């Protein structure tokens, strides 16, 4: 991590080669996702495990896009703030609504 942030700091921008590598990683992860999806049409592993793996893989993907393509990694802290705080709110929104809509008891007060 430290090694990279060196590279991204100040105005030293990463090389094109680096972007190609990131894109390669993204391609591989996407392939893994799709592979997992197709293979598990046969229900080889439990659904929850598949979902967890998929979420992890796409988090990696998203993080790579944000950190390297959008250069959030190593960029000014304020950008992290204005992006990550709403991201946290957004996640809260999603999770809390899933809880709220999971079952209705129907007793008021």
């Amino acid at each position, binding site marked *: 991590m430290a090694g990279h942030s060196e590279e991204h700091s100040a105005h030293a921008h990463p090389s094109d080669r680096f972007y190609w590598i990131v894109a390669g990683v993204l391609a591989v992860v996407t392939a893994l996702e799709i592979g997992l999806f197709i293979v598990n049409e046969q229900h080889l592993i439990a659904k929850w495990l598949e979902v967890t793996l998929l979420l992890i893989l796409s988090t990696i993907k998203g993080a790579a896009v944000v950190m390297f393509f959008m250069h959030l990694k190593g960029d000014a802290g304020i950008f992290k703030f204005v992006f990550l705080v709403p991201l946290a709110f957004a996640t809260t929104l999603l999770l809390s609504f899933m809880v*709220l809509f999971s079952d209705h008891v129907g007793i*008021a*007060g």
Partner: protein
Amino acid sequence: MAIAERTAGTVSIPVVNVRPGWAGWLSTTDHKRIGIMYLVSAFVFFLIGGIEALLMRIQLGVPDNTFLTPDVYNQLFTMHGTTMIFLGLMPLNVGLGNYLVPLMIGARDMAFPRLNALSIWLFIFGGLMLYVSFFVGGAPNVGWFAYAPLTQKQYSPTAGVDYWIIGIGLTGVASIAGALNFIVTILNMRAPGMTLNRMPLFVWMQLVVAFILIFAFPVLTVATIQLLFDRHFGTRFFLPNLGGDVVLWQHLFWFFGHPEVYILILPTMGIISEVLPTFSRKPIFGYAFVAYSGVAIGFLGFLVWAHHMFAVGLGPLANAFFGAASFLVAVPTGVKIFNWLATMWQGSLNLTTAMHYAIGFISMFIIGGISGVTLASPPINVQQTDSYYVVAHMHYVLFGGAIQGIFAGIFYWFPKMTGRMLDERLGKWQFWLMLISFNLTFFPMHLSGNAGMPRRIYTYEADMGWNLWNLISTTGSLLLAVAFLLFLWNVVTSIRRGPIAPADPWDGATLEWAVSSPPPVYNFAVTPRVRSRRPLWDQKYPHLREINSGHGMSGAHNESEKRDGFEHETSPAMEPIHLPSPTYAPLIVSVGIMILGFGIIYLSDFGLIAASAMIVGLLIMAFGILSWVRISHVDSPHHAH
């Protein structure tokens, strides 16, 4: 004291290319003019909302009244609520912010002056669109939170709801654009030395509010888009018989709606935090606590939305959670209240009209806050929700709180904005009349609410025991109108004949008082360098300067820095003053968007005509954007003129 004069010899004063007369206003990108346009248009909308309220109050003055038909009454309360919130209070706050934030942080303008102009136009057109609905088949009549499925075509066949959606949509885009502008301006355009820790509290609160806005508003936008699709394009988000979920609308609306009420109150809490110290001749007590409690309120505001839904049947667990979270808001709010009291404590209170209103804010807001706490208790809430008790609560916080806070701000900053003083004596008459009639109007609503009077009823039976309360309310509201007329009179006469305002009429402490009244277009001839929270104050009273200002900041002040609250850049002659040129582009873009909006409303009913309107709108928009891009390039600081 005015820097502009003192240093004018050493800087290049820009030739400002302001168009004369109306054209100047239509093409302006000056944050001060835009601020005034916000204030004036919002105040006009406010008066219209007030007249709607008066009509409702007349209808409710006596039981079984037939002054209004139910449908008209329903349109009136919907438009009253929508107007007051979206077209009155919010833009009044935005207007003050627009005018003052750049001045207070020592900037020449907002970060994006043209975007700022777009915001004001979208706001005005959004408001006008809402009001067009009255003339084309009926205004929205579903209440300001527009619960599904009443809003569906089946139950609300007129275009009123569509106008509501589009009108709110336009003002919503305006608000989001405005919030982006505030965030960037406040974070990035502060004068040298103006650390976050030295920012005036009004600016702090505007910053918090801008963040709340950009987090909360998109949720409303999505909900209204979904409703629009339900009404016109065959979706079923909120159609229960097809599997849609009407409770989802409520969650989405209030996920926005509760943060919204803090959007309304926090800027005025910022005003109070400016007015009280000035007229107490003391610094704000517990600056950091007042600032961070605002952040805490803003944050907690996102965790309490379902306290508007206790009667929905979410289950005891959910209700308990949202109730507890709501109680928690009382703590940071209390912190603010007590710090304000401590600011006044042992001060030298100059009881100007602005100070009257600031004190009025505290005394009335806590009544609303306390009724909020009873409402936040789920069991109590199910007795009080949907009753006039809620109407009482909201008006104590909205009127007793926010509107009185705005008046504090207007009386405080009017001299700065117009160069004239308002009449203080008239102002105090207005204050007392307003305070009394406000309580006459809204206090009885606690009682009628707890005596079983539901809200949003156009008539009631004579034997319910509510007659006296309603009569008092109606009387009070008529007196309120007199108070507003006093204010209008005061403004009109003072602008013409009021005493000329000096740069610093109140012995203020913050940067806006360092420039002339009204300030020059470029605000500061030379960008000030800030050394403390009270830059101007420290300059006027060097012996009282805050040695350790910015608490916890390193004491790296050298001798010359200690001498002055703020200084000017050491090389004044160097910096050319750069101001954005006037342009019609934002106006054109918003006209295009408005026409597009009309097209959307009628798309499913008048396909061809509406579609052509949409295309026309898009073309106008495209034209506006093109000239926008051109002017912003020509105008860019790097571009040789």
